[in-house]
């Protein structure tokens, strides 16, 4: 562990910060339909929160919170959610992603807003999962054994 990782100040601040980061990301995701924001940005912020956690507490710790399998399901599920919403429009006789045709809410615009939110959530899920798994995959291995292999190669 590096000095930074051991620093009590940083560890405490990160611990306090992360819930707010994640909450903010959820806000950004849900705000996508009516203002600046959306699934991409929110997902990245969420992912950044987890990555921050992983940087300070170690990847193994982070993987306990959000495992590879969970990542995979989030990534796939998010896209299925997004495309599924689009397909729902088709089932109600519209074009792909033509939200207005779904009789969910009294007005078309309102329906569209709700469904765009659903889509944004889907996108957010995928983006956060992909961001996190990218970080996990690319970051150097931490266990003793892995390190050993690397030294050999060098």
């Amino acid at each position, binding site marked *: 562990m590096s000095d930074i990782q051991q620093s009590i100040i940083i560890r405490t601040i990160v611990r306090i910060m992360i819930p707010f980061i994640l909450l903010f990301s959820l806000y950004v995701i849900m705000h996508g339909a009516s203002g600046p924001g959306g699934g991409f940005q929110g997902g990245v912020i969420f992912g950044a929160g987890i990555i921050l956690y992983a940087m300070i507490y170690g990847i193994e710790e982070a993987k306990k919170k959000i495992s590879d*399998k969970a990542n*995979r*399901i989030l*990534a*796939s*599920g998010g*896209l*299925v959610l997004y*495309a*599924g919403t*689009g*397909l729902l*429009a*088709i*089932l109600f*006789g*519209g*074009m*792909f*992603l*033509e*939200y*207005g045709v779904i009789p969910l809410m009294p007005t078309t615009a309102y329906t569209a807003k709700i469904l765009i939110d659903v889509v944004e959530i889907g996108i957010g899920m995928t983006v956060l999962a992909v961001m996190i798994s990218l970080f996990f995959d690319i970051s150097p291995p931490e266990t003793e054994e892995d390190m050993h292999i690397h030294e050999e190669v060098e």
Partner: protein
Amino acid sequence: MTFDIITNNLPALTVIIPLIAGFLTPIIGWINRKLCWYHVMLTMFIVFLITASNLLTVINTGTIHYQFGGWAPPFGIEYVIDLLNGFVCIIIAFIGLMVSIYSKESIKKELPGKTIPYYSIYLLLVTGLMGMTITGDIFNFYVFLEISSLTAYALIAIGDRKDGIVASFNYLIMGTVAASFILLGIGYLYAVTGTLNMADMQNILPTIYDNKVVLAALAFFMAGFSIKVGLFPLHTWLPDAYTHAPSTSSALIAGLMTKVGAYAMIRFMFGVFTPAFVIDMTRMTEILTWAAALAIIVGSVLAIAQSDMKRMLAYSSVSQIGYILLGVGLANVIGMQGGLLHILNHAVMKSALFLVAGAIFYRTGIRNIHQFKGLGKRMPVTTTVFLIAGLSMIGVPGTVGFTSKWYLVLGSMEAGMWIFVLIILASSLLNLAYFWRVFDNIWFGHPHEVEKIKRDEAPLSMLIPMVILAGLCIFFGIFAYYPLHYILEPLSNMLLGIGVLP
């Protein structure tokens, strides 16, 4: 009623079905790994049916327009299926289907433990290619281009071979340059026209053809696509990538990636810019023909020098791409038909050849041509498929290679470019040289040892797609009339601006 819902949305479903299926693959694989193959095959089959239906609709009733989310162009993203991309789409879906059937056993042996990511990426690659082909929006095109490129890099690197990773990285760098050029070109065109819709752009561009920005955009597009298709001086990524990728990936990528690249080139030249601009004003087509002619010769010559089967096929791809672009660049109806027909022909032949290379590798672990002795006895069906596909590449009449060659030569005569006639004919002799070397090794040379060799054919799931593709090599060699008459002739007229849009 329900039927209507599906038929109305077929253009969108062409892209969305493989996309969703691609992301469902991990979930299905999580339930049971073996289901993945059935899932992928079924998806590809459905996609194939959809593309077939799209093509039939286009032939019967004309171009299909599909507006995403009900937003009308030029503001919304529009999918447009005309003869050109209907034709390319069905090729993508068909080759995708064949390779997916084939991959069952091949993946088990070559990529154990990577089944799920492989199939997932596979479907995403198909999504990317489909999207590139079908979209009528120039930026949407870029996004799908990147999807297909990224998945292709991944499919090449997924194998265990060390060289595959390096090849994939080199491809990635080249591909990024290409994609960036294309992105830049898109930016330039957007800057001068203010639209991203291809049809809209084609209407606006003629008024500003004297603008240097338009010219620069064309140059960027051509440079970018030349890298993507592996046109001769820019082909350096191609041989390594094809050689070191896993068998199924090579078959898919060699069969489709460059074809779709060629499609994109055609689409941009004739569907975004106008024929008048690329043919007469900038003479881009003329430059293209010379580059293509060079590619034909150099690709064939380099193929002769190879001893690795897949590498040889890769160089042969460089030369075959030259055929397609030569035909397009000739810019007359006959040459254009030849070039377009060669998209189909080359996809069928080259996929078959790469599948054969994979099957041989699967059974024997051999890649070097000089070690092929006695294979004719050991794997009779596989080698027969190789014979048929190889003869097609040479251009023997009765196979697909002949029909496109016929049109290309006729087109060159029509254009008065006798040198190209010479080049095309010479290249068929060069093709003969490198394919016959393999035939010789497969069937001749060890008369006495051969008797002892036992039959050891590839599994059925690998044989079926190979045999179907070989059958198509002959089918379209004899019945080339149908694609030509129903699709390519009106299409060539349409592209060159002769006659009315259907």
